[in-house]
């Protein structure tokens, strides 16, 4: 049974989300502060974490960065903030997806299912896709640069694989949203921020990328 950790300081929202998620068949845990949530995740790791941005003590952004330090557990921001800079900051901190309150439970569970499907495969005899100094083994779930392993979140990895499997072709933001996030249509900022995060990890000069380039007006493509 999939488990979800809900880090939310509002008691009513937290308990209603836990109730609703349990009804949908999840094992749900609640934490009122980032510190409690992080401790819980250490002791009893959940499959997915929902985080509010405004938390007492350690805030949501710090909480996401702290979670990312340990593993690549999918993190979804559920926040009342809907301004672009809040969304981008949440994603840049390392979140995989961003939902604005009030989010319908149906929508939330759809997102959780999509995230679960984005698990990292662990095959051994995997083909290697080479992009200059970059080696991608989609089935092994591994990316190396000059032989050194690069730590990517699941979403970053799926995004890189999607681009690598269509090497040299331009994929639009909407295509990437559909294929990586399984959004029928959604917020293109998700793609942009994840591309930025990927570049920071795989490019020598993230500001002047060599592999993952923007094709103005069309989308992104991965090249050698």
């Amino acid at each position, binding site marked *: 049974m999939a488990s979800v950790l809900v880090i939310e300081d*509002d008691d*009513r*929202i937290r308990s*209603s*989300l836990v*109730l*609703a998620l349990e*009804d*949908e068949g999840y094992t749900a845990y609640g934490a009122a502060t980032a510190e409690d949530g992080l401790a819980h995740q250490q002791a009893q790791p959940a499959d997915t974490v929902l985080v509010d941005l405004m938390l007492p003590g350690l805030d949501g952004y710090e909480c996401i960065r702290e979670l990312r330090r340990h593993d690549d557990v999918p993190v979804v921001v*559920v926040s*009342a*903030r*809907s*301004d*672009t800079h809040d969304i981008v900051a949440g994603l840049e901190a390392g979140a995989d997806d961003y939902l*604005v*309150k*009030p*989010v*319908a*439970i*149906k929508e939330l569970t759809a997102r959780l299912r999509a995230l679960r499907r984005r698990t990292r495969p662990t095959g051994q005899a995997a083909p290697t896709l080479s992009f200059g100094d970059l080696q991608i083994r989609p089935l092994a779930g591994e990316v190396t640069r000059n032989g050194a392993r690069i730590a990517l979140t699941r979403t970053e990895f799926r995004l890189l694989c999607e681009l690598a499997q269509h090497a040299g072709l331009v994929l*639009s933001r*909407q295509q990437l949203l559909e294929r990586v996030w399984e959004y*029928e*249509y959604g*917020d*293109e900022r998700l793609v942009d921020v994840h591309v930025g995060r990927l570049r920071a990890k795989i490019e020598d000069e993230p500001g002047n990328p060599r592999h993952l380039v923007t094709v*103005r*007006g*069309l989308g992104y493509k991965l090249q050698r």
Partner: protein
Amino acid sequence: MRRAGLRTRVTAGFAAGALAISAAVALLSYDLTRRTLLAGRERSATRAAFFDANVARAGLAADNPDVVEVLRNLDIGSTRRAVVRRNGQWYARNADAGVTAAIPAALQQRVGNNQFAVQRVHTDTGMALAIGIPLGDGTQFYVLDSLDELDQTMRVLSLVLTLVAAGTTAAGAALGAYASRRVLRPLTTVAEAARDISAGDLNARLDTAGDPDLKQLTTSFNDMVDQLANRIERDRRFAADVSHELRSPLQTLAAAASVLHHRRDQLDDRTARAADLVTDEVGRFQALVTDLLELARADQPPERSPVDVAELARRVCHSRHLPDDLVTITPDHQTTWLVDPRRFEQVLANLLDNAARYGGAPVAVRLGSASGLRYLEVDDEGPGVPPQDRQAIFDRFVRGRTASARGEADGTGLGLALVAQHVNAHGGRVFVTDRPGGGARFRVELPPDTP
């Protein structure tokens, strides 16, 4: 009548002033010159007349002199004509009757009384000086000295002075136009700043380091903009706070309603019906709050990026289970537009939802360009929108008549208001017309992308 502008009035004022001054100077100098020249001319004419009179007196001193012969012997130019009246009889060099007629009776009277007299007279050939000198023995000597030459000079002078006055007036007008433009230039700057501000640029300020005479204007203008910006920021923050305050309880309601919905089977009939009402209303409340918040932010400038609107339109149709072939594009039309993707999507989505709610269903979505504008049209085959409602439907909380009459107002009443705000933010407009063949046609027009 419309009042003339400040610039026109200043220019006219300068021109009138220049005209008054130059006309006064011209008249004065004309008069002075004329007097001086005339006085000089009178003196020389008198001197010459006395000389001629002496010659004539000498000639007439003989016994029984031939007066005409005496006159003929006078060395007299073509501009002067001499006559003699002797014992009531006129004598002239030639038979020119006009001369005697031109000498006024008053002058003759005075000369007859043995007095020297000068008078300016009009003759058939122009202005002249009539000079009368008594020669004694009932004989008077008259000279009619033409002032034609002087007249000519004065005419030239008056022409020159008129031209100078006209030139001065024109120069005054030009100076006025220049000065008013210069003086009004800071106002133009203010107008430009005000325009920038109303276009949403709250960072526009006037340069306070400029003209010290304008410091008060620039300072108070900048203060006003500061206050305005503060107020807008306060409003924005208020909207954000309200947003947060509404979103949080709504999240609880949404989650709790989902639990109720999920366990509907375990409820008795009445409770289940109540639970359904709660669930439905929470959904509507949610949509309302989302739209309200969107509306509160809608005056912000759009975050433009190149968007393939044809693809976006098909996607939005697809997500509403509408056939893809609903969307048609003008042949050869470039479908990549520079718009805010989120807001443009909402425009289309709201128009489609509106068509579904009040017009049965959307029957066509058209994208294209005509006469320099890019357009988006959404058609439905519903009852259409009566002309008196065509403006009001874009106001907040106005719903279609048929819907409210049937009590089916399930929309938030903000959909078309949001469409209008988003389109305005893009510098375009939206309006509704009749669709040929029945129904409504909503048309969004956007100006071309500025590169």
